[in-house]
């Protein structure tokens, strides 16, 4: 059973429905006991960094997730803000992140010649896998839907799984052991998102 962590950050209905659509057993929950029984976890997230960390803390999920993900090595997939929270912090806020990855989020800044590029980066974009990972297995010419103003910069290049380009190449997906993160929204990326979530459910 995959548990989608409900900590009040964004509509998680479409993630749950996409998992149901591809026949993966999943539920949305804010109950620590349900989270503890999960085989795998999804940390979704739309909104501001500090707000996300504050809500995780208030729900008691920071300690719990450290137990489940670091001690018990349950696979976790962070989506969008959920990926950024895996790092140590963000320019968007003051609070520290979960600190599982040596990575921090920075706002998109462009050289003057590229100032026509809008922030947030919003829309479909091609994604290029730069490392082998079960998460991207058997996805041909992957493209995904993005909405974000901040992007993750990894201190450890080995954590970078995939890149996309918006003015410059940026990190689109990460993996360190059982910890996975994607900057884009698989739940809004139809067949590509379905393949990726199926990979997370079956191969990760």
């Amino acid at each position: 059973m995959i548990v989608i962590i409900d900590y009040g950050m964004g509509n998680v209905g479409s993630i749950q429905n996409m998992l149901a659509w591809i026949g993966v057993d999943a539920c949305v929950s804010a109950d620590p006991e349900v989270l503890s029984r999960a085989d795998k976890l999804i940390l979704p997230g739309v909104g501001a960094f500090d707000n996300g960390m504050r809500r995780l803390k208030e729900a008691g999920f920071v300690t719990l997730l450290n137990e489940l993900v670091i001690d018990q090595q349950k696979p976790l997939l962070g989506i969008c803000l959920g990926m950024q929270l895996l790092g140590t912090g963000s320019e968007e806020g003051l609070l520290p992140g979960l600190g599982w990855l040596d990575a921090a989020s920075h706002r998109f800044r462009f050289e003057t010649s590229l100032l026509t590029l809008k922030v947030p980066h919003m829309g479909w974009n091609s994604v290029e896998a730069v490392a082998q990972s079960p998460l991207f297995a058997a996805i041909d010419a992957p493209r995904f839907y993005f909405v974000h103003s901040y992007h993750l910069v990894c201190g450890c290049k080995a954590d970078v799984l995939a890149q996309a380009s918006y003015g410059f190449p940026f990190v689109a997906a990460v993996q360190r052991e059982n910890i996975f993160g994607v900057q884009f929204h698989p739940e809004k990326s139809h067949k590509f998102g379905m393949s990726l979530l199926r990979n997370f459910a079956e191969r990760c």
Partner: protein
Amino acid sequence: MLQTRVIPCLLLQNQGLVKTVRFKNPTYVGDPINAVKIFNDKEVDELIFLDITASRTGQLLNLDVIRAIASQCFMPFCYGGGVRDIETARQIFSLGAEKVAINSFALQQPQFIREAADLFGSQSIVAAIDVKKNLFGSYRVYDSSRGATIDLDPVRHAIAMEQQGAGEILLTSVDRDGTQQGYDLELIRRVTSAVGIPVIASGGAGNLQHFVAAVKEAKASAVAAGSLFVFYGKHRAVLINYPDVAEMERLLA
């Protein structure tokens, strides 16, 4: 990858999905969630939902329908209809829509586009413009909330919408709506040559060649269609469908 967005534009009336002809005679074509489920299977990159009663009657938003669409929709979608304050727009985004379209209210208060764009980002704000030819054959903006054209040149209005911060323009020809006779290329050309933001051509698509003309001749950035995706054959049997993506890629390349 299909570089040109080909967007089903679906009309909501109460709980149901309808299709109009020249903005009249809405015909019931099914359940919106069922349509979303069919489009989920067809590699559709984006959907537009417009509630055609909300702005006319001033009725409150159908939040349950938007919520159901958001959680069943495996692609980004835009919602429009009856958005006339920031709180409503915020509600639509929080339910899970990626974009909000604003039409009649931008005619009364163009600066509302600026306010919404500043708060939610230009990328999330679509200025929808309906256009009808008047008795003298001139293009005029059509105001659905009044059911009449107003004395406003659509090109001037499109420029104003861009200046207010709209991220894109959904340009619909009332005269071509539901006719499947092809887009009003002259109208699209006039608007695309006057603004820098993407223009989505809408109203009149009846086949894939119409998409090609709107993009290549009239320089639309994206194309929207209604009838083409909800009717099939010359007897207009209701059938939710979407063209083969590979074929569109070839035609629109």
